[in-house]
């Protein structure tokens, strides 16, 4: 059993992790040296945070455009309120859907309450994939639209933005 990190040490560790994980053969040892702790202490704290879902995993943010995922589409649907949770959960589990959220309607300007993001390589493939998905889930009668993005103007926020690596999808 390790001695838990002090509050000050765990705060310092969290700050360091916000910047990313050191690219070293023993990254937790590198972090431990920086906060004057031991490698097992750091590892235990990081595991605990992951269990508590402060973060989902130690992973990557990919530049999806650089990797050829140029077709970024937002599928929006107008789902009856009584069904939106069920449809949201089903679509959220469908292959190819990377994000799925319920958001408010703003009538009369905006009628859609379910939002799904789909990242693909080619537009026609994404269109076909969405059509197939809607048919498969018997949703193609619901009012829906597919909004492709054509240009990204700003990748990151400034001073109020959360640490890099947080998922900023509003």
């Amino acid at each position, binding site marked *: 059993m390790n001695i838990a990190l002090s509050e000050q040490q765990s705060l310092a560790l969290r700050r360091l992790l916000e910047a990313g994980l050191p690219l070293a053969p023993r990254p937790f040892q590198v972090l431990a040296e920086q906060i004057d702790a031991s490698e097992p202490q750091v590892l235990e704290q990081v595991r605990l945070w992951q269990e508590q879902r402060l973060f989902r995993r130690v992973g990557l943010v990919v530049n999806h455009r650089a990797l050829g995922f140029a077709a970024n589409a937002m599928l929006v649907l107008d789902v009856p309120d009584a069904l939106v949770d069920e449809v949201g959960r089903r679509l959220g589990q469908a292959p190819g859907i990377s994000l799925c959220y319920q958001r408010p309607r703003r009538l009369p300007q905006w009628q859609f309450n379910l939002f799904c993001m789909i990242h693909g390589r080619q537009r026609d493939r994404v269109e076909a994939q969405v059509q197939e998905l809607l048919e498969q889930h018997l949703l193609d009668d619901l009012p829906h639209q597919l909004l492709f993005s054509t240009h990204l103007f700003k990748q990151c926020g400034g001073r109020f933005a959360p640490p890099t690596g947080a998922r*900023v999808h509003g």
Partner: protein
Amino acid sequence: MDDLDRRLINRLQLGLPLVRQPWQALAEELDSNSSDLLDRLHELLNDGVLTRFGPMFDIDRLGGAFTLAALAVPEPRFEAVAEQLADMPEVAHNYRREHAWNMWFVLACPSEQAISDTLLRIERLTGLVPLNLPKEETYHVGLYFPV
């Protein structure tokens, strides 16, 4: 980018094992060695193929307030409005989409009040009324880009 780079990217998107020598563990899985994997990761980050390696913090656990907002910008003014938003620190990213609501951006602020204030400021600045579409329920968050 070769086959091992691709396998490394795919594998790391699932999460690094939390062990003392994670690269040693991955090297065995990927049939490589740890220093090669580290070199490749370094290069992919330098090249901008990857933009971050580290814990993927859950935004809902970090505090702060967020929303997705949209504007219907008259086409001739599109670039100018995009520039106005680019200067605002609260705007986290901004996409042009093919729709009457053609500008979609995320606001990240310290509080709900600051979100409202920012939306009002955008309205005054641009003369356009934004749609405010905060997340009400999350059904799935699972960005994964197999390469």
